[in-house]
């Protein structure tokens, strides 16, 4: 099977979907002539032309709204945010226009749009360019929120997102673009709303998504060397959340750690903990623990940036704690 980077897997998804459906078009800052700030859209301008691969002014609110309007009348726009950090400027359109139009119009107008771009913490980008937004977006009824952790999932989830008739936010891991994995050439989709058991074990469950899948897998490798086997449940889709997959694992292992890039308060992990305590209370042998970003804006300096981020050692420590080994 071909090995591709996460970046190229996303690019392949875009190309295949644009070939398949001429209503699909891509717009955003630098997506066309520059080939994309993160090179996801490389070559698409040449193949599809400037009406379908559209360089926009640096105006997130404006072009996100333009995408919503086009979607309301039947096109299938993919809005690339150069990073989700900049998408805050467009959040009114994502929330008040994209997410609510179907409901407000009583089903008359749906908004088949994809908002996508890099999300999460990066390296020494400091407070305004290094943060994770999934809990903000997952809070909103009317949105689907997807966070692929591997190249395979990146292609399959993005294709599913483009075919979905709802607004879907695709949160790509900013530090994952160069990671590699097997990606079939075929036209496959990874269904939205289905979690994936990325690794099997019976001592504890790690629930995670997006870039933290990599961290959880590395932690699982190291734990295995100590004879500790963990399930890694990759949510893949944060909203709707596949709670059954989480429950199945927790009912097997009886211990659970949630790893995410966002802040603690009102984070995705907080929701997972709520579901688990509600539906797996009798199966738990320890309180559910969370690994997340420190409750601070991201600092620039390397040493304290490291302290702020969830990582492999913090994940291992949390797993050992739910096993009462530390």
């Amino acid at each position: 099977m071909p090995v591709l980077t996460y970046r190229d897997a996303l690019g392949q998804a875009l190309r295949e979907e644009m070939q398949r459906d001429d209503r699909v078009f891509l717009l955003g800052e630098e997506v066309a002539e520059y080939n994309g700030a993160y090179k996801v859209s490389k070559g698409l301008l040449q193949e599809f032309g400037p009406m379908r691969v559209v360089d926009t002014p640096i105006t997130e609110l404006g072009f996100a709204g333009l995408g919503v309007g086009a979607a309301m009348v039947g096109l299938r726009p993919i809005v690339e945010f150069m990073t989700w950090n900049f998408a805050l400027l467009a959040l009114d359109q994502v929330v008040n226009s994209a997410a609510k139009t179907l409901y407000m119009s009583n089903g008359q107008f749906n908004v088949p749009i994809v908002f996508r771009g890099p999300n999460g913490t990066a390296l020494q980008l400091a407070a305004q360019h290094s943060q994770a937004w999934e809990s903000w977006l997952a809070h909103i009824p009317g949105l689907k929120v997807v966070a692929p952790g591997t190249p395979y999932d990146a292609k399959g989830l993005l294709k599913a997102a483009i075919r979905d008739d709802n607004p879907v936010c695709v949160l790509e891991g900013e530090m994952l673009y160069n990671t590699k994995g097997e990606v079939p050439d075929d036209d496959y989709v990874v269904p939205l709303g289905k979690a994936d058991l990325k690794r099997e074990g019976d001592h504890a469950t790690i629930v995670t998504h997006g870039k933290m899948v990599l961290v959880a897998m590395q932690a699982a490798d190291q734990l295995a060397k100590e004879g500790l086997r963990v399930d890694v449940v990759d949510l893949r889709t944060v909203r709707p959340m596949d709670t059954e997959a989480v429950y199945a694992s927790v009912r097997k292992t009886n211990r659970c750690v949630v790893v995410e890039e966002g802040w603690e308060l009102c984070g995705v992990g907080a929701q997972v903990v709520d579901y688990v305590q509600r539906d797996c209370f009798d199966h738990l042998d320890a309180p559910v623990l969370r690994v997340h970003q420190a409750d601070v804006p991201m600092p620039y300096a390397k040493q304290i940036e490291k302290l702020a981020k969830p990582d492999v050692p913090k994940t291992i420590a949390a797993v050992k704690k739910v096993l009462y080994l530390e």
Partner: protein
Amino acid sequence: MATPTASANGATAVLDAPSHAPDPAGDAELNRALLRSMLLQRRFEERTAEAYAIGKIGGFCHLYIGQEAVSAGAMSVLRPDDYVITTYRDHGQALARGISARAVMAELFGRSGGVVGGKGGSMHLFDARTNFLGGHGIVGAHVPLGTGVAYAIKYRGGDQVCVCFMGDSVPNTGAFHEALNMAGLWKLPAVYVIENNRYGMGTAVDRASSIRDMYRRGDAYGIPNAECDGQDVFAVRAAMREAVDRARTEKVPTLLEVLTYRFMGHSMSDAVSGTYRSKAELDEELKRDPIVQLRARMQERGQIDDAGVQALDDEAKAEVQDAWDFADASPEPGPDALHDHVLVDTTS
């Protein structure tokens, strides 16, 4: 013809051109239809205020009384397959676009027979049948949406037009600027209509906008622009016809400022004249009531007599009474309605 890079002077010349002078005679049938539309809007909203007062309508409710010539004139030049997108002051526009008074009143009553099944209320009227794309409640946020609709028209190579109505507060928002910049840059078939009723809520335009002539903002985006008298339905029609033709045939947007006035307060929480404007000002504006003006001009031309006006008004009142009765009889949305239409069911 103003070019996309026209100066303010060049652009305002659009309305000085003889072909755009208000229709001197008009067509009796068309004028009757315009008067009928304006009377229906007026009578509908008078009853709306009454229904609000007795608690049949809740929430926010922004009346359009005084501005009926804008909706009637603008809609009268559109084709059924054109698109309309607007703000929360949308009742009059919905009626003028041809949405039934029954469906609008039932929506205001929060009933299942409403145009959006009671989900939207006053501010969120949507109707796919008439390409009426809402009904948006965040000031300025629908302008990029209208621009996206125009982009979709261009993408498909169609010759429809998207008309985007907005209040006078909108040109001060970032969304307006971002959207018009793209519309000017990409030459999108949109007509942006600023309904300048002189107040953004209770703040007079000259206390909120750095320039008084809002249409001139089009110059900043290379968009032809003009203003017209919004209390004269013929002037609105002439200006809209020019703008719509330009969008349809030349694929160029227009920014049109329509000078109008709202006779009621900003919303039902606001007294009729408000603390922010004088009674004398309101009385002066009431003399320019667009319905009275149209009626007078039709009578001068012998296109209608007093009995004819009375008959049209009676018809409008009867239609509104029918709408009220329909709304009252329409069931409340059932519990199932709470959760439907959050997402489209898809199998991907």
